[in-house]
Protein backbone atom coordinates (compact mmCIF):
# COMPACT_ATOMS: atom_id res chain seq x y z
CA UNK A 1 0.00 0.00 0.00
CA UNK A 2 2.76 2.38 0.99
CA UNK A 3 4.83 1.38 -2.04
CA UNK A 4 1.84 2.10 -4.28
CA UNK A 5 1.43 5.49 -2.63
CA UNK A 6 5.10 6.25 -3.15
CA UNK A 7 4.89 5.30 -6.83
CA UNK A 8 1.91 7.58 -7.34
CA UNK A 9 3.35 10.59 -5.56
CA UNK A 10 4.13 13.39 -7.93
CA UNK A 11 4.43 16.35 -5.63
CA UNK A 12 6.14 19.36 -7.07
CA UNK A 13 9.20 18.82 -4.85
CA UNK A 14 9.97 15.71 -6.86
CA UNK A 15 9.57 17.47 -10.18
CA UNK A 16 12.55 19.70 -9.53
CA UNK A 17 14.75 18.42 -6.78
CA UNK A 18 17.01 21.36 -6.16
CA UNK A 19 16.94 24.09 -8.80
CA UNK A 20 20.69 23.56 -8.80
CA UNK A 21 21.21 24.51 -12.44
CA UNK A 22 19.41 27.84 -12.09
CA UNK A 23 21.31 28.51 -8.86
CA UNK A 24 24.66 27.81 -10.59
CA UNK A 25 23.76 30.23 -13.39
CA UNK A 26 22.82 32.92 -10.88
CA UNK A 27 26.14 32.47 -9.05
CA UNK A 28 28.17 32.51 -12.28
CA UNK A 29 26.31 35.54 -13.60
CA UNK A 30 26.84 37.41 -10.31
CA UNK A 31 30.55 36.56 -10.47
CA UNK A 32 30.61 37.74 -14.09
CA UNK A 33 29.04 41.07 -13.11
CA UNK A 34 31.68 41.56 -10.40
CA UNK A 35 34.50 40.69 -12.82
CA UNK A 36 33.08 42.94 -15.55
CA UNK A 37 32.67 45.76 -13.04
CA UNK A 38 36.33 45.29 -12.12
CA UNK A 39 37.27 45.30 -15.81
CA UNK A 40 35.40 48.60 -16.31
CA UNK A 41 37.15 50.15 -13.31
CA UNK A 42 40.53 48.86 -14.53
CA UNK A 43 39.91 50.08 -18.07
CA UNK A 44 38.81 53.50 -16.81
CA UNK A 45 41.85 54.02 -14.55
CA UNK A 46 44.20 52.68 -17.26
CA UNK A 47 42.83 55.15 -19.80
CA UNK A 48 43.15 58.05 -17.38
CA UNK A 49 46.69 57.13 -16.29
CA UNK A 50 47.72 56.99 -19.98
CA UNK A 51 46.30 60.49 -20.44
CA UNK A 52 43.51 59.18 -22.65
CA UNK A 53 39.85 60.12 -22.56
CA UNK A 54 37.66 57.21 -21.44
CA UNK A 55 34.74 58.94 -23.12
CA UNK A 56 36.34 59.13 -26.56
CA UNK A 57 34.45 57.25 -29.34
CA UNK A 58 36.49 54.02 -28.97
CA UNK A 59 36.19 54.33 -25.17
CA UNK A 60 32.43 54.73 -25.39
CA UNK A 61 32.21 51.64 -27.61
CA UNK A 62 34.27 49.64 -25.10
CA UNK A 63 32.17 50.87 -22.17
CA UNK A 64 28.95 50.12 -24.07
CA UNK A 65 30.24 46.59 -24.64
CA UNK A 66 31.00 46.14 -20.94
CA UNK A 67 27.60 47.52 -19.99
CA UNK A 68 25.91 45.22 -22.50
CA UNK A 69 27.70 42.25 -20.90
CA UNK A 70 26.52 43.35 -17.45
CA UNK A 71 23.00 43.81 -18.79
CA UNK A 72 23.02 40.31 -20.29
CA UNK A 73 24.28 38.79 -17.05
CA UNK A 74 21.70 40.73 -15.00
CA UNK A 75 18.99 39.43 -17.34
CA UNK A 76 20.29 35.90 -16.80
CA UNK A 77 20.03 36.36 -13.02
CA UNK A 78 16.50 37.73 -13.32
CA UNK A 79 15.44 34.92 -15.66
CA UNK A 80 16.85 32.14 -13.47
CA UNK A 81 15.47 33.70 -10.29
CA UNK A 82 12.09 33.85 -12.01
CA UNK A 83 12.50 30.19 -13.00
CA UNK A 84 13.17 29.20 -9.39
CA UNK A 85 10.17 31.20 -8.22
CA UNK A 86 7.94 29.74 -10.94
CA UNK A 87 8.96 26.18 -10.00
CA UNK A 88 7.03 26.73 -6.76
CA UNK A 89 10.05 25.54 -4.83
CA UNK A 90 9.23 26.61 -1.28
CA UNK A 91 11.99 27.52 1.15
CA UNK A 92 12.28 26.54 4.78
CA UNK A 93 13.14 29.14 7.44
CA UNK A 94 16.80 28.14 7.50
CA UNK A 95 17.11 28.45 3.73
CA UNK A 96 15.57 31.92 3.69
CA UNK A 97 18.07 33.09 6.31
CA UNK A 98 20.85 31.23 4.49
CA UNK A 99 19.98 32.92 1.20
CA UNK A 100 19.86 36.36 2.82
CA UNK A 101 23.33 35.86 4.31
CA UNK A 102 24.67 34.54 0.98
CA UNK A 103 23.31 37.56 -0.89
CA UNK A 104 24.73 39.89 1.79
CA UNK A 105 28.15 38.21 1.68
CA UNK A 106 28.14 38.23 -2.12
CA UNK A 107 27.31 41.93 -2.16
CA UNK A 108 30.09 42.62 0.35
CA UNK A 109 32.48 40.60 -1.82
CA UNK A 110 31.45 42.64 -4.86
CA UNK A 111 32.08 45.88 -2.96
CA UNK A 112 35.52 44.61 -1.88
CA UNK A 113 36.30 43.63 -5.49
CA UNK A 114 35.31 47.07 -6.78
CA UNK A 115 37.36 48.83 -4.04
CA UNK A 116 40.38 46.67 -4.91
CA UNK A 117 39.90 47.32 -8.62
CA UNK A 118 39.77 51.05 -8.06
CA UNK A 119 42.67 51.07 -5.56
CA UNK A 120 45.11 48.61 -7.16
CA UNK A 121 47.89 49.60 -9.47
CA UNK A 122 48.64 46.30 -11.12
CA UNK A 123 51.27 46.06 -13.76
CA UNK A 124 51.66 42.32 -13.90
CA UNK A 125 48.79 41.71 -16.29
CA UNK A 126 46.46 40.14 -13.73
CA UNK A 127 43.11 41.68 -12.79
CA UNK A 128 43.71 44.22 -10.03
CA UNK A 129 41.47 42.32 -7.61
CA UNK A 130 43.84 39.34 -7.49
CA UNK A 131 47.14 41.09 -8.08
CA UNK A 132 49.90 41.76 -5.55
CA UNK A 133 49.92 45.44 -6.48
CA UNK A 134 50.25 47.94 -3.60
CA UNK A 135 47.11 49.53 -2.18
CA UNK A 136 46.76 52.47 0.17
CA UNK A 137 47.05 51.91 3.94
CA UNK A 138 43.44 52.92 4.81
CA UNK A 139 42.04 50.64 2.11
CA UNK A 140 44.29 47.79 3.29
CA UNK A 141 43.17 48.28 6.91
CA UNK A 142 39.49 48.49 5.97
CA UNK A 143 39.61 45.34 3.84
CA UNK A 144 41.78 43.47 6.36
CA UNK A 145 39.23 44.31 9.08
CA UNK A 146 36.39 43.11 6.87
CA UNK A 147 38.10 39.82 6.06
CA UNK A 148 39.83 39.32 9.43
CA UNK A 149 37.03 40.35 11.81
CA UNK A 150 33.66 40.55 10.06
CA UNK A 151 34.07 37.41 7.96
CA UNK A 152 34.87 35.15 10.98
CA UNK A 153 31.90 36.59 12.90
CA UNK A 154 29.48 36.02 10.01
CA UNK A 155 30.99 32.57 9.39
CA UNK A 156 30.61 31.63 13.07
CA UNK A 157 26.95 32.72 13.05
CA UNK A 158 26.37 30.91 9.77
CA UNK A 159 27.85 27.62 10.93
CA UNK A 160 26.20 27.78 14.38
CA UNK A 161 22.76 29.13 13.60
CA UNK A 162 21.99 28.97 9.89
CA UNK A 163 23.19 25.89 8.08
CA UNK A 164 21.95 22.41 8.96
CA UNK A 165 23.87 19.18 9.37
CA UNK A 166 23.61 18.19 5.69
CA UNK A 167 25.21 21.43 4.57
CA UNK A 168 27.76 21.21 7.39
CA UNK A 169 28.71 17.75 6.08
CA UNK A 170 29.00 19.19 2.55
CA UNK A 171 31.36 21.86 3.91
CA UNK A 172 33.43 19.31 5.79
CA UNK A 173 33.88 17.23 2.64
CA UNK A 174 34.79 20.29 0.56
CA UNK A 175 37.25 21.48 3.20
CA UNK A 176 38.88 18.05 3.41
CA UNK A 177 39.46 17.92 -0.35
CA UNK A 178 40.76 21.51 -0.38
CA UNK A 179 43.08 20.83 2.56
CA UNK A 180 44.66 17.84 0.84
CA UNK A 181 44.92 19.77 -2.45
CA UNK A 182 46.77 22.54 -0.58
CA UNK A 183 48.96 20.08 1.35
CA UNK A 184 50.02 18.42 -1.89
CA UNK A 185 50.09 21.24 -4.45
CA UNK A 186 51.75 23.94 -2.27
CA UNK A 187 54.88 21.87 -1.37
CA UNK A 188 55.14 20.41 -4.90
CA UNK A 189 55.07 23.93 -6.32
CA UNK A 190 57.58 25.10 -3.70
CA UNK A 191 59.95 22.19 -4.46
CA UNK A 192 59.72 22.69 -8.22
CA UNK A 193 60.37 26.42 -7.67
CA UNK A 194 63.47 25.55 -5.65
CA UNK A 195 64.49 23.29 -8.50
CA UNK A 196 64.20 26.25 -10.84
CA UNK A 197 61.33 24.75 -12.83
CA UNK A 198 58.44 27.00 -11.73
CA UNK A 199 58.00 30.63 -10.68
CA UNK A 200 57.77 31.33 -6.93
CA UNK A 201 54.67 29.94 -5.18
CA UNK A 202 51.82 32.41 -5.33
CA UNK A 203 49.75 32.73 -2.15
CA UNK A 204 46.79 34.31 -3.94
CA UNK A 205 46.67 31.50 -6.52
CA UNK A 206 46.77 28.88 -3.74
CA UNK A 207 44.07 30.73 -1.81
CA UNK A 208 41.83 30.90 -4.89
CA UNK A 209 42.44 27.23 -5.65
CA UNK A 210 41.44 26.05 -2.15
CA UNK A 211 38.40 28.34 -2.14
CA UNK A 212 37.34 27.07 -5.56
CA UNK A 213 37.61 23.44 -4.45
CA UNK A 214 35.59 24.04 -1.26
CA UNK A 215 32.84 25.86 -3.17
CA UNK A 216 32.58 23.29 -5.97
CA UNK A 217 32.42 20.29 -3.63
CA UNK A 218 30.12 22.03 -1.17
CA UNK A 219 27.74 22.87 -4.01
CA UNK A 220 27.85 19.36 -5.44
CA UNK A 221 27.26 17.70 -2.06
CA UNK A 222 24.50 20.10 -1.11
CA UNK A 223 22.51 20.23 -4.35
CA UNK A 224 23.29 17.01 -6.27
Amino acid sequence: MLNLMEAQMTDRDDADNSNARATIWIMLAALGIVMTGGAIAGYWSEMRSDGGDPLSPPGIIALALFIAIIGGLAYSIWRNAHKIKASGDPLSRREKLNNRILVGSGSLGAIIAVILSLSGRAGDGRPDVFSNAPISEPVALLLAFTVGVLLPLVSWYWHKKVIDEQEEAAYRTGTLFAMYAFWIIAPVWWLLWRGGMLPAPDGVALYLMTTFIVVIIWFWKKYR
Partner: protein
Amino acid sequence: MKNRLKVLRAMRNWSQAELGDHLDVSRQAVNAIETGKYDPSLPLAFKMARLFGLRIEEIFDDESDGGQHG
Protein backbone atom coordinates in the same frame (compact mmCIF):
# COMPACT_ATOMS: atom_id res chain seq x y z
CA MET B 1 20.22 4.00 3.60
CA LYS B 2 16.61 3.42 2.50
CA ASN B 3 13.86 5.14 4.42
CA ARG B 4 10.12 5.84 4.42
CA LEU B 5 10.41 9.55 4.93
CA LYS B 6 8.82 10.44 1.60
CA VAL B 7 5.80 8.25 2.31
CA LEU B 8 5.42 9.53 5.85
CA ARG B 9 5.63 13.09 4.58
CA ALA B 10 3.05 12.43 1.88
CA MET B 11 0.67 10.90 4.43
CA ARG B 12 0.68 14.25 6.23
CA ASN B 13 0.51 16.17 2.95
CA TRP B 14 3.65 18.11 3.81
CA SER B 15 6.05 19.59 1.27
CA GLN B 16 9.75 19.00 1.75
CA ALA B 17 10.11 22.58 3.01
CA GLU B 18 7.34 22.05 5.58
CA LEU B 19 8.99 18.88 6.84
CA GLY B 20 12.27 20.80 6.87
CA ASP B 21 10.67 23.42 9.11
CA HIS B 22 9.38 20.72 11.48
CA LEU B 23 12.86 19.20 11.68
CA ASP B 24 14.68 22.56 11.56
CA VAL B 25 16.67 21.60 8.46
CA SER B 26 16.68 22.83 4.87
CA ARG B 27 14.57 21.45 2.03
CA GLN B 28 17.77 20.20 0.42
CA ALA B 29 18.50 18.16 3.54
CA VAL B 30 15.05 16.55 3.45
CA ASN B 31 15.50 15.82 -0.26
CA ALA B 32 18.97 14.36 0.28
CA ILE B 33 17.71 12.10 3.09
CA GLU B 34 14.65 10.97 1.14
CA THR B 35 16.75 10.05 -1.89
CA GLY B 36 19.34 8.25 0.23
CA LYS B 37 22.15 10.67 -0.65
CA TYR B 38 22.63 11.72 2.95
CA ASP B 39 22.21 9.69 6.15
CA PRO B 40 21.01 11.88 9.02
CA SER B 41 22.77 12.07 12.37
CA LEU B 42 21.37 10.07 15.27
CA PRO B 43 19.84 13.20 16.92
CA LEU B 44 18.06 14.10 13.67
CA ALA B 45 16.88 10.53 13.20
CA PHE B 46 15.42 10.60 16.74
CA LYS B 47 13.77 13.93 15.95
CA MET B 48 12.11 12.34 12.90
CA ALA B 49 11.00 9.37 14.95
CA ARG B 50 9.41 11.65 17.56
CA LEU B 51 7.76 13.76 14.86
CA PHE B 52 6.12 10.76 13.20
CA GLY B 53 5.52 8.82 16.43
CA LEU B 54 7.55 5.87 15.21
CA ARG B 55 10.74 4.07 16.15
CA ILE B 56 13.86 4.87 14.14
CA GLU B 57 13.95 1.39 12.63
CA GLU B 58 10.39 1.89 11.40
CA ILE B 59 11.58 4.85 9.34
CA PHE B 60 15.05 3.73 8.26
CA ASP B 61 15.95 0.40 6.75
CA ASP B 62 19.51 -0.79 7.18
CA GLU B 63 19.89 -2.72 3.92
CA SER B 64 22.86 -4.66 5.29
CA ASP B 65 20.60 -6.74 7.56
CA GLY B 66 18.22 -7.64 4.74
CA GLY B 67 15.50 -5.37 6.08
CA GLN B 68 14.54 -7.84 8.81
CA HIS B 69 13.45 -6.13 11.98
CA GLY B 70 11.99 -7.65 15.07
